[in-house]
């Protein structure tokens, strides 16, 4: 057995217009947990996809357990003991846990039929051995994200992985579940597994790993021992400059009367199950209300309900005195509610429309762009688009370029530009920084704060607790379709919010309730 589970030497991977990996050296010792740290777009996932056989490198050499391999596909990577837990889970929601795990290595009865029972027994044995509780008979779509992640890890182990690649595993987890994951990783280490942890969170890298390799813009900045480094050092390696960890912001003015009043709103999710249960909240002028919560607790449905995209079963939504419940999305837009959607492709931009056409989406029937029902004004549209491009720094060859041809960050700038230039009374921002690099994130935060200072009421939905704590004036925690608590950021912390996000109540509250009872 080689000292190294994996050695990658001089890896180069080019995509049209970018060098994703530029001469990267990386090694993983047997039985270690190795952090791969870098910003979005630094090349972490590409490097690991190469290791897993999803891409062929343009140059370089890969040694697995001391033997060199080239041009292999995932099937062979699996045989070589490499397992990858992708950031976006590779699970089929409609199938059972067991079916998902055994895929590709299905035990068979009489050589023909699926042997589900054998698979289930094998899965239960892994579950026991590694302390990763899962129910092999359940359907994946019914399970919470944290359990889906355990399924992914067991899937890799089931396929015989002794080297695990975890791609941003904590992005979808609460504080408490992150601790569970860390415990599971230690257990895996005890059992002799080697692990690569891809992350962009400094604290976790230091807390969970033995060594950390930092990537920046496709190259290796350096490899350090986790115990001998600090968050500040890693941050500098990652970004290449001192990072401002807190943003300066003025105190919220928080007007007394709410701009948007939401009372007792019930709504269903796409499967027809209750997703919002009697949700009430106020959005006030000059204030950012952050919504914290584990993904899938009704945040997406809340954003859709507040923008008219999802019908509500009961309750009221009123902007000042204007009742909006039951109205169409267009009524919400004309009432002055802007929406920065979570998914650029699904909601934000028509990718095969030009910037011009995208810039007027939602306002396409309003006066300057359509002086008449049967007449659009190309000049007005072009002028408006140029204004957005200039004011929001959208980098594009021209206003007639297709949205598809912009980078993710520039697409997001276009959306933000479009939504904010409506001069809205209310802004519903749903995960507005997802997939952006540090600079992009800072930019979005600045814009939201600027709008707040100009008097808009902002609702910020984010899975990133740090972002919520940093930007919000008040924080509402969502759990199981309900607002379970509203806190001030300086009167709460990650720990308490995490408890609330996970169970709907904090230990302190429970104690109080116990005492009262």
């Amino acid at each position, binding site marked *: 057995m080689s000292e190294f589970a994996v050695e990658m030497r001089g890896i180069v991977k080019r995509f049209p217009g970018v060098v994703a990996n530029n001469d990267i050296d990386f090694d993983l010792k047997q039985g270690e947990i190795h952090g791969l740290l870098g910003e979005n777009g630094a090349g972490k996932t590409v490097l690991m996809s190469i290791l897993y056989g999803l891409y062929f490198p343009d140059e370089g050499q890969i040694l697995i357990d001391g033997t060199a391999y080239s041009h292999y596909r995932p099937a062979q990577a699996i045989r070589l003991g490499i397992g990858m837990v992708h950031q976006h889970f590779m699970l089929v929601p409609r199938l059972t846990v067991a079916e998902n795990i055994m895929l590709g290595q299905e035990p068979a009865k009489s050589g023909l039929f699926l042997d589900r029972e054998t698979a289930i027994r094998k899965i239960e044995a892994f579950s026991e051995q590694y302390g990763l509780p899962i129910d092999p008979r359940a359907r994946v779509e019914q399970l919470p994200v944290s359990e889906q992640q355990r399924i992914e890890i067991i899937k890799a182990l089931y396929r015989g992985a002794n080297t695990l690649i975890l791609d941003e595993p904590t992005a979808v987890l609460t504080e408490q579940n992150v601790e569970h994951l860390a415990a599971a990783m230690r257990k895996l280490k005890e059992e002799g597994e080697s692990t690569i942890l891809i992350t962009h969170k400094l604290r976790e890298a230091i807390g969970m790993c033995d060594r950390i390799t930092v990537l920046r813009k496709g190259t290796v900045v350096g490899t350090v021992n986790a115990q001998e480094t600090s968050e500040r050092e890693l941050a500098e390696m990652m970004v290449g400059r001192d990072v401002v960890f807190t943003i300066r912001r003025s105190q919220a003015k928080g007007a007394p009367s709410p701009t948007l009043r939401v009372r007792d709103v019930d709504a269903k999710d796409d499967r027809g199950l209750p997703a919002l249960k009697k949700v009430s909240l106020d959005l006030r002028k000059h204030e950012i209300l952050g919504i914290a919560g584990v993904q899938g607790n009704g945040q997406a449905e809340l954003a859709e309900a507040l*923008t*008219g*995209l999802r019908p509500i079963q009961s309750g009221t939504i009123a902007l000042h005195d204007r009742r909006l419940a039951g109205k*169409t*999305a*267009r*009524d*919400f*837009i*004309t009432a002055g509610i802007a*929406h920065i*959607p979570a998914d650029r492709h*699904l*909601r*934000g*931009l*028509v*990718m*095969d*429309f*030009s910037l*011009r*056409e995208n810039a*007027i*989406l*939602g306002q*396409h*029937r309003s006066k300057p*762009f*359509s002086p008449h*029902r*049967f*007449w*659009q004004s*190309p*000049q007005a549209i*072009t002028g408006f688009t140029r204004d957005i491009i200039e004011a929001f720094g959208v980098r594009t060859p021209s*206003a*007639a370029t297709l949205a598809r041809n912009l980078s993710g960050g520039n697409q997001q700038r276009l959306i933000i530009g479009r939504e904010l230039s409506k001069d809205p009374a209310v802004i519903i921002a749903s995960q507005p920084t997802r997939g952006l690099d540090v600079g992009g994130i800072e930019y979005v935060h600045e814009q939201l704060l600027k709008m707040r200072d100009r008097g808009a009421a902002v609702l910020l939905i984010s899975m990133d607790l740090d972002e919520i704590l940093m930007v919000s004036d008040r924080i509402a925690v969502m759990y199981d379709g309900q607002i379970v608590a509203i806190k001030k950021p300086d009167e709460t912390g990650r720990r308490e919010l995490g408890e609330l996000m996970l169970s709907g109540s904090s230990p302190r509250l429970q104690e109080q309730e116990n005492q009262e009872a």
Partner: protein
Amino acid sequence: MAIGPMFKRSVVLKEMGITLLSIALAFAIGTIIIWIAGFSVSAVFSNLWKGAFGGKLAIGQTLAKSTPIILTSLSFLIAFRCGLFNIGAEGQMYIGAMAAAVAGAYLRLPIVLHVLVCLTAGGLAGAFWGWIPGYLKAKRGVNEFVSTMMLSYVAIGFTDYLVAPRGPLHDDKYWANQTIRIAPSAVLPRILRPTQVSMALIVALFFVLLVWYYLYRTPAGYELRSVGLSPTVADYGGIRIKRKYILALSLAGLLAGLAGSGEVLGTHLRFIGRFSPGYGWDGIAGGLIARAHPIGAIFAALLMGALRAGGMQVQRSGAAPGDIAAVLQGLVIFFIIAPTLIRTLIRRRRR
């Protein structure tokens, strides 16, 4: 400078280049088929050309055949722009033709007005036949692809019944399945005598411009196109998707209905059972060859019309069965619908 798809020169040139190469490739394969089948390649192509463009009569024939195809192509592409497949233009055309024939034969109106009323009746009847699958799509989630097709068969059967002997609209003077002749005031005049080209061609070209304007210069057309490219984003933009589905298929029906009306008012001067040699299906081909662009529909329809006219000449000459034209049409489509095929071939050559 106004930037509309009509004027994006580099894009248009590239698309046109790909289209022309696809057509060339299709004709090359067609040549091989003719050769394998044992016919004279030169005789087939010379007759094809002669029938389509060889003289005033031939050109008239081509234009006459192209006229309804322009409209059925528009019918296909306006639904396509909304993300829907209207493959029922044939049936919508029959329903429209029947309505125009009835209005033409049984109403008594002054000269210009009568034609307009007949066109309106035909268009609206076709629109109704398109509205049904649109409504079913929006309200019941019925796949418009299957329903437009099925309703096409229903329309053909229904109009057949109306004009069959013992049917309520049958012209008892003749044995053939047809209605009585329309009033002279309802006739769309011929414009290129002695050929069959009528004012219907002008109507069709007028609607090309109208559809272009609608799609690219009105907020309603903008909405229709955004639904076609991304329904979820359109929803986010406050656009009522289901209404657009109903509207798009109704408009598709309207255009197909006008195609049928043009045939009745300009060519046959009565409704004849099963009068169409497949103009509705040609519209699918035309819409695809035009790459769903209204201006392109003119050229695509000309190609289809030329193939039909040329095919007839090939048949008459005995060089080969005239249906070689249908094979060529099928091949052209087949090469045009694979957007990366031609590009791949070009790239191979460069290496």
